């Protein structure tokens, strides 16, 4: 299990994947928006998206888990 966490407080701008999608390590999965900047968050492992905890527009705090991956 691998988690993608918010690197800082901000709003979920875009969720780029759906549950069940297969992603590569380094692939962007979510883009946060904070301080008027785009913050792409990427998967740290090759894996399958098992759970997405947020919707576009949600406010998230630093360290919040946004998405879970299961290693392949």
């Amino acid at each position, binding site marked *: 299990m691998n988690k993608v966490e918010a690197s*800082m407080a901000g709003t979920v701008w875009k969720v780029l994947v759906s549950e069940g999608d297969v992603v590569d390590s380094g692939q962007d999965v979510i883009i946060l928006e904070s301080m*008027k900047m785009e913050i792409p968050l990427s998967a740290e492992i090759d894996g399958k998206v098992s759970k997405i905890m947020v919707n576009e527009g949600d406010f998230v705090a*630093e360290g919040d888990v946004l998405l879970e991956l299961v290693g392949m």
Partner: protein
Amino acid sequence: MNDQWTKELKERVQKIQAGGATKYHEKNAEQNKLFVRDRLELLLDSGTIRVEDGLFANCMEEGLPADGVITVTGKMNGQTVCVMANDSTVKAGSWGSRTVEKIIRIQETAQKLKVPMLYLVDSAGARITDQLEMFPNRRGAGRIFYNQVKMSGMVPQVCILFGPSAAGGAYIPAFCDIVIMVDKNASMYLASPRMAEMVIGQKVTLEEMGGARMHCSVSGCGDVLAKNEEEAIEMARRYLSYFPANYKQKTSKIEAKSIQAGIRSIEEVVPDNQNVAFDMKEMIRALIDENSFFEMKELFAKEIITGFARLDGRAVGIIANQSKMKTGSLFVDSADKSARFITLCDAFNIPLIFLSDIPGFMIGTQVERSGIIRHGAKMIAAMSEATVPKISIIVRKAYGAGLYAMAGPAFEPDCCLALPTAKIAVMGPEAAVNAVYSNKIAQLEESERNEFIQQKREEYQEDINLYRLASELIIDGIIAPNRLRDELKERLELYESKEMIFSERKHPVYPV
């Protein structure tokens, strides 16, 4: 003189120089730790003079050669330095009264000679059995820290942490200018996991409590994480190459090198879109002499980059916002990291270059509760007080108090220059239009809103037009990216004779 005397002396010296019992040497080797005298061989220039005092400390006792610490004066990169080095083969490098006295004396020597002081730490802490002789008295362990504080800013103080640095001993690194930690082996903590479990009931590993990686990435107590002892020693040698011997001197200029071959130019690195991040380290590489960057706290508070470099052979301190990490906004830890780096450069006459690409200080409850305002104030105070040449470059944006913290025009930089893409404002256009016209926008029909917002944003852009700022003498110039390195070279040369006194008083009341 009878040969017998010389022979006895020689035998005693050899025995002391061999350190503790064989089993402790073997344990060291198992942990990939070098014997303290081998560390010194790597640290100091080979074949140059060195003197060691107090070799016979505690020689009347069995099993305490040199009382567990070696104190020498020698040369590093041709520069005289003083060194104290714990011997972990002697009672785990613990401190007795003579250990402490030796450390105090080498510190006194460094002060008299006005030369850098290095601490090679690998110690279990105080010998509790000797506490009355080494802990509370006038020349007890406390005096080591007192001396460190006194020497701070007078001569460079460097700590290499090879093993534990426990309890009171953990303050040696804390008072140094730089702490280099060997991954896996180095640790610092006030109480060991065993003690913590006993006193507060917490169960953790040593690595969690005070491991090298934790300190270099989370607590900020460590500056450089080295993969082994050899690398740690090499880093200490490299670090000191950017420094003069003391606060009265300046780092010598060395032979200039060109920038690294084959890297992208600044035009290629910096994106036009203000909302997209880029790697500021690429821009730094495009400005400095090849392979000359020495980064401080690389793993900690990565939204700000702090490090030493050579530009045209001159030593400089660079402080730059990293938009790739947390948008490059300043947080509590990054403000702290910056304040410390600025103070370090200013103490030893190293000019500062600020590269701004900052959306501002971070906002929100999380940072307010952590005291972002007082930490921000700390950085602004350190930057204001710095009297070394201060060059402020607005790379892409400098919004809000971010402009202030990055040596904006009001803070008497020797110049504030901007690249043609730069924006300087209280806030970015999106936030500003919303702040000023939020009521108006709410009253507008849905269909009119976008057009209104767009129009106001354009007006705002015009208001903060860079040429307007240059025309009003807010900035001193607009520089083409491909001219920036040459511009910096020339200005660093011209500002060399800068001398200023910031303010007359005892000392400021520091915002901490």
